[in-house]
């Protein structure tokens, strides 16, 4: 294999390992699968070209998120949209990801995400349904309201309750406590 193929191959392995994290991070910021995919692709192109600037290989995930954050910010600005996440929240998100990494350092991202899947599994059926429709199937809250014959506020409330329940459950699990 020549040098270019080698470097591409190594980078592909690295990128594949962190693709679930990168996509999840970008989805948190832009809440749009297609846009997140485009931004992730752009992030990876930049990461490959700037790999020389990465001083510590163990910082690769955080470094990737940093590039992704800037790309998401630029994309929003190009679209004339306000970036939806406050800077201090962005910083806290990095801390959350760090906790995921440290909790199960030997796991893949998909394995680390089982924690959230477990907590999702603890939700009552009603909350799972709105989560599935909104987060997995990309339906808008008003579309869910129509299909479930609920009012919009009820759907928004359910989504919020689901988010809070999953958050609390994940925090508890990361702290090593049993979930009630």
């Amino acid at each position, binding site marked *: *294999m*020549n*040098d*270019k*193929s*080698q*470097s*591409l*191959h190594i*980078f592909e392995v*690295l*990128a*594949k390992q962190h*693709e679930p*994290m990168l*996509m*999840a991070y*970008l*989805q*948190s*910021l832009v*809440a749009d699968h297609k846009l997140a995919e485009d931004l*992730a*692709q752009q992030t*990876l*192109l930049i990461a*490959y070209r700037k*790999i*020389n600037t990465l001083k510590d*290989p*163990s*910082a*690769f995930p955080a470094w990737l998120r940093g590039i992704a954050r800037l790309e998401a910010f630029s994309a929003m600005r190009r679209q004339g949209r306000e970036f939806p996440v*406050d800077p201090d*929240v962005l910083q*806290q*998100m990095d*801390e959350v990801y760090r906790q995921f990494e440290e909790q199960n*350092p*030997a796991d893949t*991202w*998909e394995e680390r*995400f*089982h924690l*959230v899947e477990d907590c*999702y599994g603890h939700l009552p059926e009603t909350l799972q349904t709105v*989560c599935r429709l909104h*987060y*997995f*199937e*990309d339906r808008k809250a008003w579309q869910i309201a129509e299909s479930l014959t609920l009012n919009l506020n*009820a759907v*928004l*409330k*359910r989504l919020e*309750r689901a*988010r809070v*329940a*999953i958050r609390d459950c994940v*925090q508890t699990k990361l702290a090593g406590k049993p979930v009630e």
Partner: protein
Amino acid sequence: MIDETPDSTPPAGPRKPDAWELVCTGILRTEFGRRPSRAVSNAIVQLAAEAAVSNGAPPKTHTEGLIGRIHQWLSNLETRPALALAAALIMVTGVSIYFLKSYLHESGGSENFLVGCKLSNASGMRWADGSVTLKIGDSLPLKMLRLESGVVEITFNSTAKVAIEGPAQFQLIGGNALELQSGKIATDVPKRARGFILQTPTATVRDLGTRFGAIVGTDKSSEVDVFQGRIQLTTDDKANAQGWRLTAGMGMFVDERGATPADALPELAFPQPEINLEVRPQNCGFDVSGRTAVGEVPTDFGYWSGLSYSLTGATEEVKPANGPGMLEFYNPAAPLAGDSGVFQLIDLRPYKPLLASGQVQATLSAMFNRVAGDANTAGKFGLTLAAFRGSPAEAKALWAGRATLALALADKELAADNNPQTWELLEAATRLPPETDFVIVQIRAMVPKDNPGATLVGHFADLVDLRLSTPMRASSIAIK
């Protein structure tokens, strides 16, 4: 505790999600990391294409820089707090292994090739004029390839293997992804290559560690069938963005009108890459004190049984070939004095789809050793593999009549050397017919015919292994 209050109370004004909620919802939106994404494959294709045209651009320094830092970082590992670096260790180790593998297995390259995916086997291969000229071992170019006839096997660096049967049109779209425009394909994706993606004109198949096949017609319709494990299949159907999970025996037909469940076609309708499976006996290295029995042929799967033997650790003269344990043979007591055999039954019914081809070769192997002996010491070992149809309850009778009842039988003997420092490998192989339900494995220490009283003490076995393998083949059932 999950909040179960009614929904009637509207939200008290818009509340922005906090960092934890944002992270969790991002993870939800990726379906816990399982939602198919083409970000990496698209990026790699773009980078590969750029590399192909730039002819001398600087990735070399990228490689040297990254790898150099990785190795430097590894060499400093002991001086750093292990826990904080553990996460990165996984990543770096994986990368280093891949890096080393690449060096070991690749020989030169051309700039038009994508991440070292190779043509690993071929039969009757004929490419369309001007499409490509390839020989076994070559890396595959980054362009649409037109296979007019024959079967080719491609091995990805991820270790995923595919067999494609012509006429077919396909191209690599990543180091673990392939686009099939037309033709037949079958995959063998080991766990480490999980995530292999097959793109057809109407469907995207994400492998979740399995074997599956697909046929893409000239009308661009796709038939996807799962032989083993599970896959995720998605289409352009916006109403079902998460697609379908298909498991063994399930199939799906997808055309421009949508997806329709279908009964999976038999594996013989697809080509097949070379497959190697390890179907190890339970406690194959005799390293754990699992279930064992004293007696003759077992009546169930998964344990060793013999008239006179024990599981032991290292002795003064002989150390196990691997791990802490090995098996020691003893002389059976009269009236069964003679060779000392130890048996295990191995269930092969889970491999029926693979066996259906009639091309599966089973190779039984074991390591043997003995203490230095004299004229009164036995010196031979034996190994038998016998395949049967039926139930384990019949095993004793089937074994007794194996000369006529076995569907396949392989037997090998070894005259062991007189050196307790060396373990010797013995292998026996046979082709398994599709009717095979289980095999009986026997390892034995043998006494000379003219000296049935020769001692078997100090005769050992270790690392008994059974491997199933099938060669690459073309499909043998025509599908209209």
